[in-house]
């Protein structure tokens, strides 16, 4: 491979691997900024992936897949929301419950619906070049020849960031996640805002799960394979900020891309140990060794109106 080809494929692969982490991470930011700890990102994304598969298989269209992915993942997120907000459940346990239900139910439904006969691959989403820009050497084919969902993920980062920190609704979310009592006495509906935020996180996870499925066009058991937990890591490493999530996601994606490039160049690397890097840097980040990250103050704390 020429040096140019290596760089091009490195950037392209990094973006591709980062896309689901960005979606999941934005979902995590929205939910946790409102005060609902979300370790169910993995399960919600898995439900999204299955939803895309079922929707695309039933309708034969990409749109059908995306609609069902978002609908299914949002329902999954609402289970977490109800347990966390209304049932005052411990949010770690509630998240585990959603992850287990998602893992079991998607695999069960896949076996029950498609298992015996099997199905043809569903329509996926190939790269779409942006006219003119994709003709630029190196950055053209790497940055501007991606899945539509990757462009959407990249655009969603500044959009969510602006919404969260610069609009009234976003500031309400922040208030509810930091000081729910104060927000409540100021007349904000703490429960409603938390429900909507977790639902929004479901939408993001649905898109992330859909992206994972569009890359391979068929469903397999537990196919998110830890991406949801990497997204959770990106939330923390990114200090609960959309831009931080993007930086973390690109960093984590680059580690994986680097490995596959080194391997294709015949350089032997301990592949599995590189895969552990995102988890390790997250542990370092929560331990405050390199600039402490700070969770929203009411993250994970159920709000009980007195």
């Amino acid at each position: 491979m020429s040096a140019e080809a290596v760089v091009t494929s490195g950037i392209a692969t990094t973006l591709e691997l980062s896309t689901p982490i960005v979606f999941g991470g934005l979902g995590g930011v929205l939910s946790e900024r409102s005060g609902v700890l979300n370790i169910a990102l993995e399960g919600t994304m898995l439900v999204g992936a299955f939803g895309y598969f079922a929707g695309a298989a039933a309708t034969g269209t990409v749109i059908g897949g995306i609609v069902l992915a978002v609908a299914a993942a949002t329902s999954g997120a609402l289970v977490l929301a109800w347990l966390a907000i209304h049932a005052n459940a411990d949010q770690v346990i509630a998240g585990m419950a959603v992850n287990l239900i998602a893992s079991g139910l998607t695999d069960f439904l896949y076996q029950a619906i498609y298992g015996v006969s099997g199905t043809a691959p569903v329509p996926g989403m190939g790269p779409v070049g942006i006219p003119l820009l994709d003709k630029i050497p190196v950055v053209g084919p790497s940055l501007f020849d991606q899945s539509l969902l990757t462009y959407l993920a990249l655009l969603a980062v500044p959009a969510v960031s602006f919404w969260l920190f610069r609009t009234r609704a976003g500031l309400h979310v922040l208030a509810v996640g930091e000081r729910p009592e104060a927000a409540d006495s100021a007349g904000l509906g703490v429960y409603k805002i938390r429900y909507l935020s977790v639902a929004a996180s479901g939408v993001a996870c649905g898109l992330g799960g859909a992206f994972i499925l569009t890359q391979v066009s068929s469903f397999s058991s537990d196919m998110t394979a830890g991406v949801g937990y990497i997204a959770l890591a990106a939330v923390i490493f990114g200090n609960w900020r959309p831009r931080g999530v993007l930086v973390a996601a690109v960093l984590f994606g680059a580690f994986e891309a680097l490995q596959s490039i080194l391997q294709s160049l015949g350089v032997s690397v301990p592949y599995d140990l590189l895969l552990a890097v995102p988890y390790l840097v997250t542990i370092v980040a929560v331990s405050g060794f390199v600039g402490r990250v700070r969770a929203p103050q009411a993250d994970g704390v159920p709000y009980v109106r007195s």
Partner: protein
Amino acid sequence: MSLGGGISVPGGDPPGEAVASPQASVAAAPEPARSLSALVRAALVERNGSRVVLSAIAAVVAFALGAVALVANGISPWAAYSALFSGSFGSAQSLASTAVQTAPLLVASLAVGISFRAGVFNIGAGGQLGVGALAAGIVGGYVHLGTGVELLAMAAASLVAGGLWAAVPGLLKAYTGANEVITTLMLTYVAADLIDYAVTGPAKASGAINQTPQLAGSALLPTLVGNTQLTAAILVGIALVPLVWLLLFRTTYGMRLRMVGLNPGTAAAAGFSVRRVGVSVLALSGALAGLAGMLEVSGVLGSVPQNMSLQVGYTAIVVALLGNNGPAGILLASVFLGALTAGSTTMQSAVGVSGPFVVFLEGIMIGSVVGMPAIARGLARRRRGEARAAGAR
């Protein structure tokens, strides 16, 4: 407000520990002569009832929702559930496979239960189990010692590996305040990657398959009943139940541990080092989970494979919750979930669905344990409200 009208919780209940908290366990024992409906009411609405009742209701809810999912896919729940039962308790062979599934799960659940008792959320038992399994697999596969000594060396290696693996989040929590939920969870994935690295590289057995060497002879736990997979692993698990009980309820350390779980502030005021208890509990919990990994390698798998399933670590959380973090409850709940796992193979051949369905049931069970009290209290309040409205008229 419409959404917020919901749930009010008695003031003393610390947020975030609604159900997992050890406080449920200090509730008064239920009086013997109460009707079933009173028991259900106590467990769901008044929060002072028996945890066994709450767990049993959760299991019923899971089977009911499971039946709905089966019917929706044109599968007879009767056929599925009877296959599940016959595959777990129906014959000597199925009883043996239930015991095989139960052994590592029981030990891992005791590990999780101990940490929950101390108010420490070790949700990474799967990772500790994995490094314990790896350590035991390496010692058993590469270091050849005599009968008995070999197994002891493997057990020691797994205890140390699991203990150290969990001591890291313990120390981080104590000295940097890092949340153990995040660190133990992340370390589970690191453990999975470490196992794959080891079994494809430095610890790989000769031959084509990526795994540690196949254990043989003195590195295998002795088989209890011929022609079955039943090994002494289940005896180790059962022996640990009274030991953990003694530790929790008959030693000073156990009392400190439970006090820290109930109220860290009071424990600190009484002069206990909450920090030290936290670190040691995580190390102890990790060591036990590591031992569960040794039981799995030496009693079930025979070697550490690539992509080893660490699912037991999550199932152990379900068991600990259903068993209310007590040794006896955990024993019951682990037999129950071990049976479901064992029976799922028979269910596969009978109706074509298997393991994932059981994972779905597990998820519903813990969702129900933490969610049902809220539903029940809501219904009770509505009924009271209606009664008041009727009285006013």
